[in-house]
């Protein structure tokens, strides 16, 4: 039982720290600050992701043969921790974290060669077409249909809650290719070019005032059969195996640590009745509780990584990463709103930040409302608990 870094790992830590210090110049840092709430997400991220790729660090978790790094789990941990500390976001996940592992695990040689390098270099941007209006938590009941005609599938139906579709070049979809058997068995995994005739995107207005969600409609969209990953009818299995990859980054410990440190400084500067908000016993209690939860989550994640590194199946604690990670993110967002006080409730855009005097209030508000989604997407909290009860506790 030992969490000390070796000399080699400490040297690696220095290298990563230096890289982010050099890479995030003043200008890029400015653009990435609050990037999740920015309408120019893609532009800001493109430059940053290409700098990562130039160093070979766009996708360190991929197998080496496709451009990943042969890192130990300590190195992955160090990389993410330093990235978070530097205030650098993780790359937009839909390509590099979500679809790429399915492509390199189940795709053909041609598919790998065609898609993976373009993901690494951020030439193609991806979005995820899973949910439908009638298939949310019960994803397997999806109905978006792909009918085989010769070398093509004809796709009809629509996908909903599609983040980033407005800027994406490609969408990876779960589509129904068979309706005859068990609902999980008739699903296939299809990659669809967003410029295909019959594919249209319509925005969904959301309570956070950020444009990130869409509906994607397919009206007789013709998709080459070559764009199917793996076997027809196995899409559900592929998508489920992908969740394992998602899990290891989904807790967002490094981001929460940074957000918490910022929150502390905002609270320290905020004066209430002549005292810093940080000295308010009730506020201090809430802040301490979330910090302690985060300290626990950080080690839960390390425990999961350590057992994965030893080739073991991730322990039962892994099922908690998403649930607890998003709870912590939401608590931090909530506290940031409370620090902003009245200013958290002003409709932004009418006054400039300098007039308001609380220049963090705008982003605090947007991220608070946007953050409500994190306990809904990727399997809602309730679904996470169902899954844990069934698969971990055997209930």
């Amino acid at each position, binding site marked *: 039982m030992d969490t000390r870094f070796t000399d080699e790992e400490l040297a690696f830590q220095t290298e990563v720290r230096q890289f982010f210090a050099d890479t995030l110049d003043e200008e890029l840092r400015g653009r990435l600050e609050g990037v999740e709430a920015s309408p120019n997400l893609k532009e800001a991220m493109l430059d940053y992701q290409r700098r990562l790729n130039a160093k070979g660090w766009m996708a360190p978790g991929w197998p080496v043969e496709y451009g990943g790094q042969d890192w130990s789990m300590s190195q992955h941990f160090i990389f993410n921790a330093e990235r978070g500390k530097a205030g650098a976001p993780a790359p937009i996940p839909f390509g590099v974290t979500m679809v790429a592992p399915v492509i390199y695990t189940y795709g053909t040689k041609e598919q790998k060669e065609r898609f993976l390098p373009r993901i690494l270099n951020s030439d193609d941007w991806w979005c995820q077409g899973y949910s439908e209006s009638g298939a949310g938590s019960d994803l397997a009941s999806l109905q978006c249909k792909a009918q085989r005609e010769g070398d093509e599938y004809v796709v009809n139906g629509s996908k909903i809650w599609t983040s980033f579709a407005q800027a994406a070049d490609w969408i990876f979809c779960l589509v129904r290719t068979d309706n005859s058997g068990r609902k999980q068995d008739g699903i296939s995994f299809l990659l669809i070019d967003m410029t295909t005739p019959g594919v249209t995107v319509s925005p969904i207005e959301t309570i956070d005032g950020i444009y990130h969600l869409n509906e994607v409609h397919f009206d007789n969209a013709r998709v080459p059969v070559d764009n199917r990953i793996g076997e027809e009818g196995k899409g559900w299995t592929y998508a489920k195996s992908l969740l394992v990859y998602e899990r290891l980054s989904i807790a967002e410990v490094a981001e929460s640590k940074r957000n918490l440190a910022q929150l502390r400084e905002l609270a320290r500067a905020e004066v209430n009745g002549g005292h810093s908000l940080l000295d308010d016993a009730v506020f201090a209690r809430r802040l301490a509780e979330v910090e302690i939860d985060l300290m626990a989550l950080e080690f839960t994640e390390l425990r999961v990584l350590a057992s994965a590194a030893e080739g073991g199946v991730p322990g039962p604690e892994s099922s908690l990463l998403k649930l607890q990670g998003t709870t912590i993110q939401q608590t931090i967002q909530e506290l940031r709103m409370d620090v902003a006080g009245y200013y958290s409730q002003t409709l932004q855009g009418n006054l400039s930040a300098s007039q308001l005097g609380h220049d963090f209030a705008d982003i605090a508000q947007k991220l608070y409302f946007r953050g409500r989604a994190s306990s809904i997407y990727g399997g809602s909290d309730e679904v996470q608990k169902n899954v844990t009860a069934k698969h971990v*506790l055997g209930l």
Partner: protein
Amino acid sequence: MNFNLTEEQTMIQDSVARFVQDNYAFDQRNATVALEHGFSLDHWQQFAELGWLSIPFAEAHGGFDGGPVDTMVIMQEFGRGLVSEPFLPTVLLFGGLLKAGASEDVKNALIPQIVAGELQGAFAFLERQSRYIISDVRTRARRDGVNWVINGEKVVVLNGGAAQKLLVLARSSGEQSDENGLSLFLVDAFAEGVASTGYRLTDGREAANITFNNVTAEAVIGGLGEGYGLTSTVVDHALLAVAADALGAMESLNARTLEYLKTRKQFGTHIGSFQALQHRMVDMFAACENTKSLLYRAVCAMDAGDEDARRSLLALKFMVGKAGRKIGGEGIQMHGGMGMTEELPVGSYVKRLMIANTLFGDADHQQQRFSALVSEAG
């Protein structure tokens, strides 16, 4: 980076688990805590023979030279089995203070006796008014020639009834809450002027209130005025031990509750099939995993002498209180009426967890220390 136990640590864990299995079925436990002082001297001798009493001590004094991980492993199994023998007060507190501060002569005289299972000790530091503030000490020590003479009262002294020797935190100078001016004195429990009133804690373990009326101490442990520093160090290790004990209790109670959900039938089906109960059971599981993660964090930090050690310890002890209360309360609730009875060990686990919360400062107290520490560090 790894979270594995060494081969030696696994052996210790196995041997404690085996002892618990052979000697600590619930009815056996009830018989044990019903004994004088709430534990079995036979068990204590077995502990000595198995080498457990030697774990934290230096080889020169007959010890095993173990570290925080070894202590954690033992205490976790003790908690799992609701073991009532006074390992914490005699070995970790009394022995720990001797190890940290006593002269070679005193160590040579007493530590081998602890290791052999011949000596019971206790640490008398709390007072009626002190609540969780260790430095709030009214008990006075005054010099009388070459001797020190103690006057005052100590409360909730764990193992105070069985202890043959006491370590007493007393004020040799300074005002009531000064951290300076506190010293540790070795006192014979049978010395003239020592009067002890024993009683049981809710879970059957024994404590005592002890008055000192012009009691001559046998020795000063550590230098004069070093009492607070020594106590802090040893209490830090004790926090870790109590947390490990609590984790073992949480794991065991969760396992029992889960088993109950799978076997108890109502409305024609297992009650574990109800989503309302499933989600609550997941929350209990999560509370336990959080405690485990913070325990590993703290034990690794302490073992490495890491600067994060204190923050991790305080976070851990906070979580012990918070998670323990949740798991305890829910454990009773999920067992329904049966959770209210003495027929099942559920209540005993809950009591163990509630005692763990108060020992060396409860969750609220630790949170305040945590907030102060973090705010200071900026």
